[in-house]
């Protein structure tokens, strides 16, 4: 297009064009920064077997390496506890697949809890969290329980004191800044919880001999006894798979491509209900329905050989005893406070009808359960305690 202009008109035209160009460029750059830079660059790759679906991650807390790094420091940070001597890792120790080797956990005030600390193995895939809370589905919410819970007291976080400590630390200032680059004042509880949740989500374990056999097609990864044990485990005879089935050995699991099914909680016949004894009522505490008394979520059996003692209250010491418990279809306690026959609990699962195993079959089952141990998981330096914070 030819434009015939005098000098003034031309200058005005150029000025207007330049202002227009400037405004357009400003708008384009603003939009670029708004959309491209407002979110941390996705920098997370799940360590999963081929074709595995990743876990569900809440939209307001996408995974990033920076958040996982910060979460790892916080997970091992004793300043998060009231007594300054406990961290998340006190009850969730890597060597025990992020469970602990005691029946009942002890909180910051010395209070003994009424439940066994669950393993954090693949917690990202849990349909719900803790032993019996069907609506508690987000790690970001669950983490508030150990931090602030008072029945029982767990970590007893002093928010003001802890935030002051984190703010005076050069390392934490850098870690929070890297994890939440768009937050001008990133050191606060919400970001801390998001980072902790990201670290816990990163605790993925799919490298046991079973996984190598099942998902990588390595026929030599399991020996004959382990395969016989697996066959028994997944048979109608033992019915283990009804509660501990699926890729995560718990039907209470979900992933990005799964459908939202009903929650699975089960009464295993551990105790006989007696009015005079205060039992842990499990799902009943949430639903207040009689049928839910004594029902608990089946935890994953991944790394189960590392997480003794067992059951929601840590009342069974070894895997051998757990097998005997299920073979008997529940437990009869002959004396003491909890004396009674749990096998006749009216809410006991239909699948717990008991079974008979020969000694060889029992050893096969145990061999299989040990084949669910992921050594790489408990030795992975990315999950271990970081260096001392200065």
């Amino acid at each position, binding site marked *: 297009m030819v434009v015939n202009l005098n000098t003034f008109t031309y200058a005005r035209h150029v000025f207007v064009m330049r202002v227009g160009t400037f405004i357009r460029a400003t708008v384009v750059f603003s939009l670029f920064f708004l959309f491209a830079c407002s979110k941390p660059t996705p920098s997370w790759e799940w360590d999963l077997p081929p074709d595995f679906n990743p876990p569900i991650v809440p939209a307001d807390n996408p995974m990033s390496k920076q958040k996982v790094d910060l979460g790892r420091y916080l997970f091992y940070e004793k300043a998060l506890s009231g007594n300054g001597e406990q961290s998340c890792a006190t009850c969730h120790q890597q060597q025990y697949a992020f469970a602990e080797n005691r029946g009942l956990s002890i909180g910051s005030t010395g209070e003994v809890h009424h439940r066994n600390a669950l393993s954090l193995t693949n917690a990202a895939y849990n349909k719900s969290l803790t032993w019996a809370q069907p609506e508690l589905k987000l790690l970001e919410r669950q983490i508030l329980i150990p931090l602030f819970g008072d029945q029982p007291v767990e970590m007893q976080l002093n928010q003001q004191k802890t935030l002051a400590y984190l703010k005076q630390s050069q390392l934490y200032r850098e870690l929070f800044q890297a994890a939440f680059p768009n937050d001008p004042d990133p050191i606060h509880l919400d970001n801390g919880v998001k980072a902790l949740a990201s670290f816990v989500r990163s605790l993925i374990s799919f490298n046991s001999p079973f996984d190598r056999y099942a998902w990588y097609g390595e026929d030599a990864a399991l020996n004959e006894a382990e395969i016989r044990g697996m066959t028994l485990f997944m048979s109608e005879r033992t019915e283990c798979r009804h509660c501990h089935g699926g890729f995560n050995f718990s039907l209470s699991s979900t992933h990005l*491509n*799964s459908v939202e099914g009903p929650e699975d909680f089960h009464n295993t016949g551990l105790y006989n209900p007696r009015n005079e004894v205060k039992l842990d009522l499990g799902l009943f505490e949430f639903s207040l329905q009689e049928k839910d008394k004594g029902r608990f979520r089946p935890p994953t059996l991944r790394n189960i050989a590392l997480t003794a003692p067992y059951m929601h209250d840590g009342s069974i010491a070894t895997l051998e005893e757990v097998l005997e418990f299920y073979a008997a279809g529940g437990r009869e306690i002959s004396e003491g406070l909890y004396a009674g026959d749990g096998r006749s609990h009216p809410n006991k699962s239909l699948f717990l009808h008991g079974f008979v195993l020969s000694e060889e079959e029992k050893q096969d089952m145990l061999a299989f359960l040990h084949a669910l141990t992921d050594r790489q998981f408990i030795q992975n330096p990315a999950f271990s305690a970081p260096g001392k914070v200065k």
Partner: protein
Amino acid sequence: MYQFQKYDGMTKNKVSFGQLKTLTIGLFVCLIVSTAYVERVFAEESNAQLSPGLQFMLGASEHYAQVGAAFYVSELYYLDQAGKQHSLKFEDSPNSQARIGLVKLSNENAAQTLALALPAAGQLIKGLGFTLGVPRDLNHGYPLRAEKPLNDATMFWTWQQGYKFLRLDLAGGDKRAALHLGATGCESPAPVRPPQKPCAQPNRVDFVWKFDTARELKNIWNIELNLAYLDEQFDALGDFQMCSGFYANDTFCAAWIESLGLDLERGQCQSSCKHQQLFRMRL
């Protein structure tokens, strides 16, 4: 705020005739627009309700206060007036893909429809049929790649056995019972390896309902889970009854399997599955 008083032609801050006229016209316009909107919404809802499909329903039960039923429906077809079989597809939905649909019924959700993708309007049919179960090529696929509706962990057994085709969980009084039906006698080196040969007892049930007079395919086909039939067996039921796999080992489980018309040894219906009593069509 305006006060509606008798118009005297003089008073200020009172509604004039012109204003009243405008207001009235506005109200009419609003009324017409909202009526049109309501009509549209109702029409959409009516269409949704009238979408052709298989509507599965829980029948009434005298004994079972709590019922959970879940099952796969596949290989859907209709019979034309000459008796020739034509395959049908399900609409794509959260519970279905073209070849297969999953129905989940409970006391809280006593009916569910699997919508049909009809080839063209106006077919007259003399019969309708489907298979209760998962087709063999889908039953033993790599479970981690399973697409809907096969991505439901509560319906999955193992890679070797595949899926539970039918899952009935019942409770009434002090009695509780469960029937989980799927393929049995499946051979492979391990439960996490698919079988190369068909399972010894496929345990799929073929249903067909034939009509004396031709009916329009574009319809809602009501199929009821016949709980009254299960009621008849209630007295014979023990306090805890679990039927999952070893059906032939238990008299009660065997009776249930036979109620589907299945032969326990072969896991197939004898000549056809017409003797089944668990599902019935309400025409």
